[in-house]
């Protein structure tokens, strides 16, 4: 009897592990972050662009799993989202929104400098210092996310954030 149970345990464990590996759901936090990124995009007004594509870029570590790519094809401001990962800093200028999960301060500073005042919405993942110059900064709190907005930075970049967004921000740095 006991030997049977033990055998069953031995065989089920690896199955369990395999099952887990196969379905491996994205961490809920990053699913939420992806949703938030999309919402930020919806609530921002960009200057007109001739292109059909809205380049949504990721700079740094990709912890999203499939969550970020799920945004592909969704519409923002009449453009279709194209998710990209930035390899070279220059590519950043093609983007409309950059999610920064790069941990190196120097790298982030370089990105921000390269972008300058281009109308690109920068969203910083948590853990990055506020002084990184990102326009929106995300961070988990309790079981949801909160975000802070640097309205000064958005103004400089000629980006207009909806008041609905600003109302929900935990902190807004005004110009």
């Amino acid at each position, binding site marked *: 009897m006991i030997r049977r149970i033990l055998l069953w345990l031995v065989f089920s464990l690896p199955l369990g592990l395999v099952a887990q590996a196969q379905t491996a759901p994205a961490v809920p936090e990053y699913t*939420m972050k992806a*949703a*938030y990124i*999309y*919402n930020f995009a*919806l*609530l921002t007004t960009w200057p007109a662009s001739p292109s059909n594509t809205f380049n949504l870029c990721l700079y740094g570590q990709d912890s999203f799993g499939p969550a970020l790519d799920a945004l592909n094809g*969704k*519409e*923002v401001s009449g453009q279709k989202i194209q998710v990209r990962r930035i390899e070279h800093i220059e590519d950043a200028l093609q983007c409309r929104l950059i999610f920064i999960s790069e941990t190196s301060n120097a790298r982030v500073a370089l990105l921000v400098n390269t972008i300058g005042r281009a109308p690109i919405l920068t969203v910083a993942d948590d853990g990055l210092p506020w002084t990184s110059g990102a326009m929106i900064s995300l961070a988990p709190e309790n079981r*949801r*996310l909160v*975000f802070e907005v640097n309205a000064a930075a958005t103004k400089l970049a000629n980006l207009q954030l*909806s008041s*609905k*967004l600003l*109302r*929900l921000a935990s902190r807004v740095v005004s110009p």
Partner: protein
Amino acid sequence: MVILAAMLPIVSVTLGYEYLAVRQAALKELQVQADIIRDNVAAALAFRDISAAKEVLDTLRASPNISRAVLLLPDGSFYAQYMANGKAPQALSVANLADGETISWNGMGVVRRAYLKHEAVGWLLIESSLDAFYMRIQWYVMVIFISTLAGVGCALWLARRLIARIIDPLSRLVALTHHVANKEDYTLREIVESKDEIGDLSQAFNTMLSHIHERDVRLNQLAYYDNVTRLANRHYFKERAEQAVGNALRYGGRSCLMFIDLDRFKAVNDTLGHDMGDELLRSVAQRLTHTLRNNDVVCRIGGDEFAVILENVKSLNDVALLAQKMVHALAQPFALDSHQALIGGSIGISACPDHAHTMAELLHCADIAMYQAKSLGRGQFCIYRADFEATEQ
């Protein structure tokens, strides 16, 4: 009654329309509120900011009709709820979520999907009670009822005035017409003092009656009076004689009858012409009337025949004296233009109750007496005696 029956469909239709219109308006109101809320709450829903979402829902407190508002996530799971004061939280049945409205007898509901830009971020269910709506309908019913009553009251008052001004005078005129037709009394009048058509009608009516009355009088005159001499004629004489006999019998007085026949009238008529003849007759009438008393009635009953009715005669002597006077008067010449006519008259006298007790008898006696006077040589009078009849035979 008729007015009420007429008002009933009007009132029902008005009420029915009001009910539908007000209900539609209430639903529109609810839809507008739903749209506003879902717009404002979209961002909070998108960012799962529950306190912000609740804040937005709480603005519904300003609408006392709203009984409940519920926010659902895109998958239909419950997110947040607002309940109006004093209401207990109710279970929520979430089946087939779709944009739409529901109306039941006790409430209205609106379901709307919330969008951030074009992205669906959840659902809003908003429910309103119909209490205020039913209150409004109640008020409408009361107002309509009162105004209907007022309307009916007005109509009744107007009708009453109409009746007084038009129907009543008309009825009186109609009654007058019937009365006049039945009783042939053309002296009645109905006065309607109003400066309108009814007044005009009444005036015209009265004028017409006056004309008929005048015509009657004239006809009467024609019927009872002799055109030539202006004396009463045979018809009048007959009636008057009847009366005289009746009075004598009833009250015990004496009524006398005189028949006067002109002796040589025919000769004058043939010689001088009918116009002169008429003139002569008029003169005769005048003389006879002059000779008699006021109450005595002189009538022309034939071509040259006259009759006199005397009532309350004291004695036959008086009558004889009178007859003598008349004979004398008639014997005088009559002046006609350039001619002079001598005619003379014979008079026969009878009395009731002395000689007769009916008019026919009285006439007969007077007639006999007159013939006697003629046969005795004319130009004289004769009082009836029974033995005259034997002589006649």
